[in-house]
């Protein structure tokens, strides 16, 4: 009958239980990669290189927080990469045509929030698959970016370097923004009623509906928040690069998805750790950097990173395979 009890795995010592979780695996892998890279090139563990890594992963890291929260709610947004690119492009064009940076910042933040809300609205009201809707929207954003740039790269000409290049003491502002976004997302998930409800919707949408949770408004607003944060990521991106092309953000969405999955977040929703997602991004960044320092060719790097995504996903599923 249906009153079978699933057996809970027996409690293990804290050390071993660490390896049961995806977070535990990730910490192990990160330590291993760090040791290998440091042996091959001691410069890897220098403060300068660590800041460097953190700065390199900041845009991806911010976008991964959006992706992770959406995935926990049982959703997804493939358009955040091109949305960030479009934000960067619009900002650049506004500054180049003589608008003040302040007005440009406000405009693009409002725009990206609105774009997120539109995604959420379409998905929740039409009850369609987020994957396809946001994939389509991703092309729309790319197309708009092509139109406003006329297909040419746009350079800021040394303006608006504050977000990307400035430092507070020794710490680059980019890193501070990234860490802040992570902490806020973590607190939001853990301590806010809104975050808890979003988690519940991801866990069981029908049960959430019958528990009197306003499923649509939570999902729409979550896409809106994700859009706003994506706007911030777009500004960091343009500030770091100093120039922008229509496809500057194109790779980020799938990378953010991969980082979240490496971090143990699944498509099913309802669970997952933002710390895991954070470590997932960190692992990607460390691997990139290590391979550069060791001197792996960029072609090989691509193969390597692809394999990491596949292996990490398989590992994250091992627990489930055992249960069956």
């Amino acid at each position, binding site marked *: 009958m249906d009153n079978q009890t699933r057996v809970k795995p027996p409690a293990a010592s804290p050390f071993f239980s660490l390896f049961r979780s995806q977070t535990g695996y990730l910490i192990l892998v990160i330590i291993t990669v760090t040791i290998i890279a440091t042996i091959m090139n001691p410069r890897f563990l220098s403060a300068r290189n660590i800041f460097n890594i953190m700065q390199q992963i900041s845009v991806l890291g911010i976008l991964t927080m959006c992706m992770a929260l959406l995935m926990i709610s049982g959703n997804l947004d493939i358009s955040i990469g091109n949305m960030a690119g479009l934000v960067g492009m619009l900002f650049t064009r506004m500054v180049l045509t003589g608008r003040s940076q302040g007005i440009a910042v406000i405009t693009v933040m409002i725009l990206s929030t609105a774009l997120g809300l539109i995604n959420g609205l379409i998905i929740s009201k039409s009850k369609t698959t987020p994957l396809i809707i946001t994939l389509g929207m991703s092309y729309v954003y790319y197309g708009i970016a092509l139109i406003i740039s006329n297909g040419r790269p746009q350079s800021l000409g040394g303006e608006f370097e504050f977000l990307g290049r400035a430092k507070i003491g020794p710490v680059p502002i980019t890193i501070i923004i990234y860490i802040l976004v992570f902490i806020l997302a973590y607190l939001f998930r853990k301590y806010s009623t809104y975050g*808890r409800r979003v988690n519940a919707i991801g866990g069981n949408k029908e049960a959430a509906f019958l528990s009197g949770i306003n499923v649509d408004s939570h999902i729409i607003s979550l896409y809106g928040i994700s859009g706003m944060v994506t706007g911030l990521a777009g500004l960091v991106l343009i500030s770091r690069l100093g120039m922008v092309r229509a496809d500057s953000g194109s790779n980020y969405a799938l990378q953010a998805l991969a980082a979240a999955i490496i971090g143990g977040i699944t498509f099913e929703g309802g669970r997952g750790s933002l710390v895991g997602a954070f470590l997932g991004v960190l692992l990607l960044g460390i691997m990139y950097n290590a391979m550069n320092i060791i001197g792996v060719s960029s072609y090989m790097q691509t193969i390597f990173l692809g394999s990491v995504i596949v292996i990490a996903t398989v590992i994250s599923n091992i627990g489930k395979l055992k249960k069956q």
Partner: protein
Amino acid sequence: MALDQFCFELSPGEVHCLIGENGAGKSTFIKILSGVYSPDSGELIIENKRYERLTTQLARGMGIYTVYQDDVLVPQISVAENIYLGSKDMKKKIFMNYRTVYENAETLARHYGIALDVKELYGNLNPADQQFTKILKALAQSPRILVLDEPTQVFNVTETDIILNIVRKVSETGTGVVYIAHDLDEIIRVASRITILRDGKKVAAYDGVIEELDSSILAKDMVGRPVELFYKKKKHNIGEIGLEVKNLMLGSTSTPIDFSVRKGEILGIAGLKGSGRSAIARAIFGAINRYSGQILYDGIDITPKNPIEAVGHGLAYLTEDKKADGLFLSMPVYQNITIVGLSSFHRFLIKMKSERDISNDYIGRMNIKTADPNQEVQYLSGGNQQKVVIAKWLFKNAKILIVDEPTHGIDVNAKTEVYDLFTELAAEGKSIIMISSEMPEIISMSDRVIVIRKCEISRELSGDEITEYNILAGYLGGTNS
């Protein structure tokens, strides 16, 4: 035990009806007959051959075809393709000749007097036509034994007539029919033999005198459970009217439903699966569309547009399938308990400490067995999961609890605990609407009972009228005595 020392006989050309409540063992029997389940002991003798058990292939090979209540066909292809999908002739072919398939399906439907566009996609059909398609699919195989599991549940009077004609026609060709139904009129019109099942045992059989039967005779056979099965509920005083349901209609053609529940009262809604009992609950809760209807509490109109409003007005709905739509399986026990009442901590922030204290309090008070409040709720047993669901609504301080099959699939001890809890809640002045098809539960827990049959109230019983006999007579329909 689902079936106990059960004997069943079917001659060629005979229509043998099986009657019994949900859980009496009818489905188990037909699954053994069609090779889905293996019996622990006993044998099947089919055309003088003995079998210890059948497999689905073996059953089909012998011409045993079953139309289940919840069969699923492919919505995206046509009626005709569905009828011949997987059939003996089709399996041998690589390419399909659409013209032959359409023509054969057309001829088949006409032969049995069914008007059906066989080229239409199955998914576009109304439930009645879908049911016809399922039956035609079985008939296309020229079965030697045809098993129909409550075939008329979705039907109105004319459609029922068509099915009964089909059954007669099939049996005239020498096919034996096993027919499961709840409707007495229907049974009397079609059966040549009747077997009544209760708790897995054959309790009575009728052969040849079918026309003289009426619902009172059959209901008498179905009653008579041992007293141990009944829970002894403590009495307490019942207050004034709390919830009122007025003129509730699910569709434009359905009969309006009116009833009320007092504060401190447990109102039993007795109904078999598919009688519309859960749809009524969902309609009250605003989870599905209503055609009309008004819900009042303390005389004030609170008709909820959606579950959000329903919860706001103090209604709670404990669903039948708690895993599908009652629990957040991937979330810890304590989060499941607090999810509906989250905003009682603070509008935006959860106070972790008081959340832990409150859930620990519920876990202790309701005797929820969990290794750790942090354990995912999916690892709990059915009974403990049900207690978590109840705790969730108590934390929200719901005034009216609509509980749908509250003890379905949970063990005896947990059942008693759930009953104790409901009694306690009613004594505190909460109104409880308890939907159940479990007879002992309805009888021992309810202060008043309404019996639902085909989305209508067929009987209302209170006090001494609440007996197995009266409820069964309500399920069966027929004359009101």
